[in-house]
């Protein structure tokens, strides 16, 4: 059974494959009752994401005013869906999924295959004139006060304008895109992101910046392309290695490597030097971004599969699909980077608001050691901007089990075991920042006491734990489900 799932996971090449796999596992539903674009699609997506463990993907095929068009939400919206993507059964714990991802690093080589343009499913239908994005995309307002209709789950591929032949310097990243009329959209990024660098380079040199916006993609890409990996590493290669499976690429009409099996690809070129009003947009901290002026792109062509599926995401005040989509792969690199210096680190939970709160479990080498590890975490690539609140727990506490974390906070934290680091870098959309981009950090040491601390460890109750108990817990759940049928 588990081997079958692993094999099936590796055979996924497209969103369609994955939706079929999810459907077979009871993890995808089709919503065929007529819905209004607003507020129904949002309401249903939010209602589904209340169940972070088990929510299904939802495919809408009867949206008022969009006859014949399909929209998918919640594809990565639960841990069960993430488990299936990784070839693990439903009910796999978050902790197990974390180690599944952490264990894949350096495990497999990238397998990139190239599909001729004429044979690539993404190019089945082609629009080069009379372009109206609304003809193809059944968009809806994701949050009530968004400034417009957003593509919230678009993977944007681009070549470095100054080094366009370098495969490794192609960038694939998820950026929020706001439609700005029938053939235009704005793209929001910051200078530190690859796309921000490419936009600045294009405007500095006057070179064109062409991009391909991929919608409805291989589900591994969104999970693994949003990672802070080195600039010269290809996201496609990385996603392939992490999935342990081939990635099929083809070329877009404007010469960029794209996934051959995506549902929709929008080709566009930046209007150099132009900025138009963008936002607000309900972002992952659960608050709206401000209104700013962002670069605008003109659409030059659209390719799509027959009867394409428009994939989107609900993002806003958590828990949302955004959290399950990026949570584990935010946590795993921090874990790997910490372990280079401190093998005592046993797990990292940075699931909350992209790591604005993180929980690290560590075997204390000496009194106060956990605080030292916390300071190292703040200097990891993701930690520099995001890790705002850090809770340090002992290795006997599972950082993914908040009941255990609360136990550690209740029994192992002294009020003077916290550190506040004032006026540190902060991610600009953190609403608690002193000014956008600058804020305080908090470290809570919830680990136990070692000499020379005179208190020592309490005489702990040691309930049975380990894989046997995990299995028993799953068995009880399965028996309960059986009894209900």
């Amino acid at each position, binding site marked *: 059974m588990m081997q079958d799932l692993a094999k099936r996971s590796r055979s996924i090449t497209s969103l369609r494959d994955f939706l079929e796999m999810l459907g077979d596992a009871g993890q995808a539903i089709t919503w065929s009752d007529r819905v209004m674009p607003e507020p129904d699609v949002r309401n249903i997506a939010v209602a589904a994401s209340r169940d972070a463990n088990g929510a299904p993907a939802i495919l809408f095929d009867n949206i*008022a005013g969009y006859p014949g068009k399909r929209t998918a939400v919640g594809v990565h919206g639960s841990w069960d869906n993430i488990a299936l993507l990784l070839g693990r059964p439903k009910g796999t714990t978050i902790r197990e999924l974390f180690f599944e991802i952490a264990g894949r690093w350096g495990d497999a080589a990238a397998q990139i295959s190239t599909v001729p343009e004429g044979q690539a499913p993404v190019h089945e239908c082609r629009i080069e004139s009379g372009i109206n994005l609304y003809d193809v995309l059944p968009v809806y307002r994701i949050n009530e006060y968004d400034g417009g209709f957003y593509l919230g789950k678009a993977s944007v591929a681009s070549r470095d304008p100054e080094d366009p032949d370098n495969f490794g310097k192609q960038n694939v990243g998820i950026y929020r895109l706001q439609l700005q*009329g029938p053939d235009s959209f704005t793209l929001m990024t*910051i200078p530190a992101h690859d796309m921000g660098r490419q936009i600045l380079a294009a405007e500095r040199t006057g070179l064109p910046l062409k991009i391909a916006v991929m919608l409805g993609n291989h589900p591994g890409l969104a999970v693994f392309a949003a990672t802070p990996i080195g600039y010269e590493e290809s996201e496609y290669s990385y996603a392939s290695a992490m999935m342990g499976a081939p990635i099929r690429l083809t070329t877009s009409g404007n010469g960029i490597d794209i996934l051959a099996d995506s549902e929709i690809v929008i080709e566009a070129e930046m209007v150099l030097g132009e900025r138009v009003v963008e936002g607000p947009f309900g972002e992952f901290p659960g608050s709206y971004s401000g209104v*700013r002026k962002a670069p605008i792109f003109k659409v030059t062509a659209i390719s799509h599969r027959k009867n394409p599926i428009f994939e989107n995401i609900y993002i806003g005040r958590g828990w949302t699909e955004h959290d399950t989509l990026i949570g584990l792969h935010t946590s795993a690199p921090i874990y790997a980077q910490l372990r280079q210096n401190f093998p005592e680190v046993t797990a990292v939970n940075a699931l909350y608001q992209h790591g604005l709160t993180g929980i690290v479990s560590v075997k204390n080498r000496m009194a106060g050691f956990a605080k030292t590890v916390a300071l190292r975490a703040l200097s990891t690539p993701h930690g520099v901007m995001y890790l705002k609140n850090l809770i340090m727990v002992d290795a006997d506490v599972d950082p993914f089990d908040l009941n255990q974390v609360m136990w550690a906070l209740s029994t192992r934290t002294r009020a003077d075991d916290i550190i506040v680091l004032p006026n540190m870098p902060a991610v600009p959309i953190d609403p608690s920042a002193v000014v956008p981009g600058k804020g305080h950090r908090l470290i809570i040491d919830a680990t136990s006491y070692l000499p020379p601390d005179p208190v020592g460890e309490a005489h702990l109750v040691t309930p049975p734990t380990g894989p046997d108990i995990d299995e028993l817990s799953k068995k009880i759940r399965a028996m309960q489900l059986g009894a209900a049928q």
Partner: protein
Amino acid sequence: MSQTVCPRCTTSGAVDDYQGKEDGKVVWTIHRCPTCCFSWRDSEPASAIGLGIRSADFAVDAANLDRYPKILQQ
């Protein structure tokens, strides 16, 4: 210039970008304000698109667009 008024910045002149149709009948229209770049569908709840009903917290000041910063300036 159209007389459609933008519910976000209250200027007129919004353009029609798209009409959702079923069996040839218009179900809704998507408008866009060229002044503040707000896009909306006329079938949305009044709380989001109603002139004077929408939360004032999300208004855009059409007379003072310079206050909105440009990102990625060299």
